């Protein structure tokens, strides 16, 4: 995420109040910083990145497993939000690249634990990555194939919804409107949009559970996801 500094803001584009609150560890400031950068970091973890190690090109293909991705995303921000890291942040260096460096290190250290040799990288060297990364390269073919089965399940789930519920999903996720804009378009409060979204998420999880109990889910989707998780357990594809 690129943040343009405005007059009166800290050099990294944050307000001075946010920078002060962040360094003090105030929950609201931490939440604000997380929300600014979480999506970008999560995409890096989802789609992977390429890098050089010992003169050879490698590629991390990204986490397909949601659990692994969330674990790595949490670990990235947990390290960034540690008191020493917060208090050492001067608000001059851009924060996004710093986070991406930590995320990359989280990934590489995970693979070091699996006894695959990669060079150690120091989190403190923000802006001086020990590896060369070429950025996001989109979902892999394997991810695309595994998603097809899930897509069918979700389409079937959508068929169980009312017109109002489908309209809400369309406005929010097809048209890409914010909750605030969606509330205006649909003539309801923002809190209503938020709570209806939460209910739809729960309804989808219940639908998946019901599919699993009736045996409709057990093979295709689960096996595809499980196999993919195992395949990506090694996670590195040499370029």
């Amino acid at each position, binding site marked *: 995420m690129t943040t343009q500094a405005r007059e009166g803001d800290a050099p990294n584009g944050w307000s001075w109040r946010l920078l002060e609150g962040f360094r003090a560890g105030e929950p609201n400031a931490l939440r604000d910083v997380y929300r600014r950068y979480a999506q970008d970091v999560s995409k890096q973890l989802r789609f992977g990145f390429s890098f050089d190690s010992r003169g050879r090109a490698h590629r991390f293909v990204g986490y397909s497993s949601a659990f692994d991705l969330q674990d790595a995303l949490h670990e990235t921000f947990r390290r960034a939000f540690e008191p020493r890291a917060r208090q050492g942040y001067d608000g001059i260096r851009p924060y996004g690249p710093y986070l991406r460096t930590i995320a990359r290190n989280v990934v590489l250290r995970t693979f070091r634990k699996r006894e695959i040799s990669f060079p150690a990288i120091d989190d403190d060297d923000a802006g001086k990555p020990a590896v060369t990364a070429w950025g996001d390269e989109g979902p892999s073919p394997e991810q695309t194939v595994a998603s097809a089965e899930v897509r069918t*399940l979700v389409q079937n789930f959508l068929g169980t919804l009312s017109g109002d519920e489908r309209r809400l999903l369309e406005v929010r996720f097809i048209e890409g409107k914010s909750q605030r804009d969606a509330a205006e378009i649909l003539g309801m409060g923002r809190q209503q949009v938020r709570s209806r979204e939460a209910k739809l998420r729960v309804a989808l999880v219940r639908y998946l559970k019901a599919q699993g109990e009736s045996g409709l889910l057990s093979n295709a989707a689960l096996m595809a996801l499980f196999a993919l*998780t195992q395949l990506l357990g090694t996670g590195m594809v040499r370029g």
Partner: protein
Amino acid sequence: MKRGSSALWRRLEDAVSGTLAARERERLFDDVRADPQAQAHYDLAFEALRELEQAPVAQAELDVVEAWLMDDARAEAVQAVPWWRRRSGWFAGVFAVAAAAALLMTLRPSPPEPDDGFQARGAGDEHGLAIDALCPQRSGNNARHGLVPAAEYGCGLHDTLSFAYRVEPGLTPDVLTLFGLTATGDVLYYAPTPADEAGLAVHPGTWTPLPMVVQLDVNHDPGAVVVYGLLSSHAPTVAQIDAMAAALAAQPAVGLSAPQWHERIADDVHALCPTSSDCESAELSFSIHEAPR
């Protein structure tokens, strides 16, 4: 699927709706780490949400991690308040309100009967402990003996805060602990305190005021405070209070039908309450306003 899969799905539902308590999250993640099939179910749920949202990473995933990080931050905030700061704040509070305390003791009402309109607060009225927090009357509200329930009317930052309790006769535990928790995770020690770890011996049967008042502007800030009362056979240490506060801070908001709070964090109060029937607990919340009410 394994036997625990219904619990897994229930926790998944809570996770995607943003209502998963910290302790439940740990259980969910432990299950997922230990069981590949559980991870496949977990991944399937979020893969479906990604598909629903037409996004590479679902908003629900970002929300799950955000809640996780906020729990980390709360735990850090509770640990970060140094003991000497807590101690000096408490001392300052006690000395500043000495005169007010004497006044309250002089003016304090005779203990009201159980049907006098005081409400047993917290998780229902049937268990053996009820607590109330009281602030001075302002014109226009329905005062009782010059004091009004803080939970109903709130308190001004420059007010004094008093407490009352009622314990059902015949109960074995006889030591009362009271502490507060602010929205930012700061712990407020009412009894025991870092300077006096003895706790308060209770007198069962009727509503009884505590022999102390707190001058709020000494070590309180405007905002919400949740007060937790615990009746146990011995007083907790300050470290135990900190641990209980950290566990409670990590819990989502609950309704009146929820179990007593010591049951909700059973693992964290085990040393004090080996079984849930060894203790009784109650809770209430009130707001402190910058200006007089």
